[in-house]
């Protein structure tokens, strides 16, 4: 018992200092839900979580608290979930994928032959949008009149300003209750108010049956998508989404030429030092064949000793060539580009992603990646060297950041564990050259004692 509880690091009181504790892991005290006002428009204050009891005790107080919490949860769950008349968005399921808009009767000569305009439905002045090519072949749900915040980051608009949703986007929205998908779809999506009544709403079960497995969407990928989406991230499919992506540029994937570590000669020795070095040059007795590597003579500086010790080659991520995603082995391949909520995101021109996520199912891929698989995955991401004022000062931070990085989402039967994998090159940070300055944020300076050595 002594080891069980006392070897745990004493965690500081403020939550910000302990990044590993995930609040979502705890069982919640649901009484705070009572304070959420579902109907009021005024922004409510964020409810505080209650204290946690670890054991049942015979007090009535505890029983009351428990039942109140349970009641609050049921109360919150019993809130009727409706499609509001104002925010209702209707979509149509298109089992055959993207259908170009119907050619209207009159086509303006200016418009391109394929991109017609539907002057009846579009209130804006007709303008041919050359983006129907951008609609993914996997898109299968059409929203004739998109409104609301969701379409800022989701869907692809075609020439007649209809938005086409990918299966995961449609599933996310229907699960959220923000979309009403109709089927069978009226011919040509004319979206007249009369025709809408002929179709029937798609149930959630039907949506799962229709969308799961469509266009390489797996349940694991969807778990990652919906989990991150609910947290406010914006996600788009990465080029590595399809397993059979065509190899575009072969020349990029030519044999990776990796430079061996540079074995510097003693360049720091003074002029006189080099002059006198012949007297007792340890190099003369040095032998990597049978040791000792550093030789038996007089050593002038520990730096020279360490330099001589460097006989093990190491991988240098900075000089490795970038690979095409097709070089990677399928589960270890970037499938999502993830953007923080704070990143300004434009659907038509997505910026550089904040995170690159690869989704792995533990039931299909039971083992950790081998070095080849992981190396290829990292080399398919762009170089992101540790730069910046703070990074330059702190070696530990540089090592933790690494030169390339990727997020592995390991899905084990619906439970997603995210791992950030970075290519850190210890060989690039010569510790022996360090003069003992600050290495990185000492995370536990204040309570020095309890940490384990």
């Amino acid at each position, binding site marked *: 018992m002594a080891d069980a509880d006392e070897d745990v690091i004493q965690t500081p009181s403020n939550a910000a200092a302990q990044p590993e504790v995930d609040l979502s892991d705890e069982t919640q005290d649901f009484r705070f839900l009572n304070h959420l006002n579902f109907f009021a428009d005024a922004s409510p204050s964020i409810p505080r979580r*209650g204290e946690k009891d670890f054991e049942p005790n015979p007090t009535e107080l505890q029983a009351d608290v428990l039942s109140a919490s349970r*009641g609050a949860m049921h109360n919150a769950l019993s809130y009727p979930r409706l499609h509001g008349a104002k925010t209702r968005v209707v979509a149509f399921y298109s089992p055959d994928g993207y259908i170009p808009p119907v050619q209207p009767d009159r086509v303006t000569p200016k418009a391109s032959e394929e991109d017609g305009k539907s002057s009846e439905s579009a209130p804006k002045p007709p303008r041919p949008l050359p983006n129907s090519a951008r609609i993914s072949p996997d898109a299968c749900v059409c929203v004739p009149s998109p409104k609301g915040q969701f379409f800022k980051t989701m869907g692809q608009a075609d020439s007649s300003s209809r938005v086409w949703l990918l299966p995961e986007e449609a599933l996310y929205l229907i699960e959220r209750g923000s979309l009403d998908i109709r089927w069978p779809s009226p011919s040509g999506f004319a979206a007249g108010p009369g025709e809408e009544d002929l179709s029937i709403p798609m149930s959630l079960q039907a949506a799962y049956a229709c969308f799961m497995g469509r266009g390489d969407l797996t349940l694991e990928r969807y778990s990652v998508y919906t989990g991150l989406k609910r947290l406010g991230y914006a996600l788009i499919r990465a080029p590595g989404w399809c397993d059979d992506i065509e190899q575009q540029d072969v020349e990029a994937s030519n044999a990776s030429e990796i430079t061996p570590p540079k074995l510097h000669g003693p360049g720091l020795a003074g002029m006189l030092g080099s002059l006198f070095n012949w007297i007792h040059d340890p190099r003369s007795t040095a032998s990597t064949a049978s040791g000792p590597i*550093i030789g038996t003579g007089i050593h*002038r500086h520990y730096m020279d*000793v360490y330099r001589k010790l460097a006989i093990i080659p190491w991988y240098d991520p900075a000089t490795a060539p970038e690979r095409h995603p097709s070089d990677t082995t399928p589960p270890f391949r970037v499938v999502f580009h993830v953007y923080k909520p704070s990143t300004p995101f434009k659907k038509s021109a997505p910026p550089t992603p904040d995170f690159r996520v690869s989704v792995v199912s533990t039931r299909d891929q039971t083992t950790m990646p081998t070095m080849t698989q992981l190396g290829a995955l990292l080399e398919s991401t762009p170089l992101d060297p540790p730069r910046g004022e703070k990074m330059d000062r702190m070696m530990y931070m540089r090592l933790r950041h690494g030169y390339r990085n990727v997020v592995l989402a390991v899905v084990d039967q619906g439970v997603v564990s995210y791992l950030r994998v970075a290519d850190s090159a210890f060989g690039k940070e010569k510790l022996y050259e360090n003069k003992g300055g600050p290495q990185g944020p000492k995370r536990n300076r204040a309570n020095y004692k309890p940490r384990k050595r």
Partner: protein
Amino acid sequence: MTIDSLAWVFRMDTPVTNMDKKVAAKSGPASDARPPRAPRPPRPNFRQIHQFPLPVNVHHVPPVIPHNPLSLISVVLSYLTFLISPPRQEVYSAYFDKATSSIHVTDERSINALWQMGFFGKGSLSRSEPSWLAREKKRRGLHDGKTSEEITRLRRTERRELKLERARMEKLAIEETLKAEAAARQSGASEPLDQVAQSIPRDDTTNVTAAATEKFSLKKAKEARALEARQARELAAQNAALAGQNQIESSSNGKSVRFSPVVRKKEFLPTSPSSLQLPDSVVDSFDSDDFPNEEHLQLSNEEAFFLVYSLGALQIYDAPLKSGEIQSTSPTTASALLQQFCHHSFQPARDASASIQPDDPFMISYTVYHHFRSLGWVIRSGVKFGTDYLLYNRGPVFSHAEFAVIVIPSYSHPYWSETEERKNYTAEKQARSWWWLHCVNRVQAQVLKSLVVCYVEVPPPAASVDDIGAVFGQYKVREFLVKRWTPNRTRD
């Protein structure tokens, strides 16, 4: 001590003192908030003790000052002294113990040197630094001061007591509530029971219960302890004034708190952290001044091979050395040692005639060991945190390990995928389950270490292993830093 080494000390000193000052400045305001802690005994001057990062003598060239021709003379002099009487590189000796498959160092001077310069090995009866003799002397009252093991034990006892105190206070609070509820039930026996339940308003439950079920933090427990101690002291003073007979009565009156049996037992533990006191008679029977050191330094095979092959600072014999006796057998050569260690990296040890395979566990672990040592890290076994290695900056007495390393072989060379048999073999060797990775990762997060997954690329079998340097030059190390990503916290 020579001038050169003094210069080295001086160089080492400057940045470290700065760091210490910073620490002092940082801990200043924090210590105000907390109750004053008992002053810690001064730490030994680790900077002085561990001034050399490796057990290798380094002789600095005295600096040449251009406008001072005398400095030139000192340089020439230093070279002349080396020319006339070259300083000898200290070579320590040890022996290989087949039973434990490790290297034992029994010579007192070698033990100290290997520990102080580069933190090699561990004491066979200690946590890391060989401190058994100091502890034993202290136990016999010959020596005072604290070893790191004792500090840890003291800390654990203290925290354990605080936790018991907290549990006791929680229990008290529960009893109070129960009493209050019983009283409420009795007084309101006429009114229906469910009204009592409703006396706590539904909407304000959070606020009410937040106040009622307020947790007792360790800090509070500490405060309560201090208060109790003061009360006890007052009580004792009172008792001293009173006659002896009254004493028992008043103390039983004064303490209304009921202790749980565990706490009660705790109270009567001896204050000394080393509760394993030998009976006096046994202690007396020893000659208290002089007793042999039963502890030896134990080097891992990687450490020993590094000292022998890379630094040439160690000689390894097959049998234990007798003091004063001149060794009849010659020390094991580096290549023979490599053979031996490779065979002993299997359990049970392989036959001596077996040839070295490129993926023998020792070859892989030594590659990683040498790699990190050559970069200046103090690399020690990570078995206490379930990893292969821990990386310390300068050494375990200076700072906590920042990185924990797990080693995985990699067979990416085309040789390993030539036949189906080799493919199966390497697949099995490389396989690590996700659960295992998650387990290791969570432990490292809990002990605030960064997890480094270190892959070692295994070359195809070599024709000969005569040139050790060439053999290890074919391996390649690649490090990946793995950290749990919490999407909740990276949103900004």
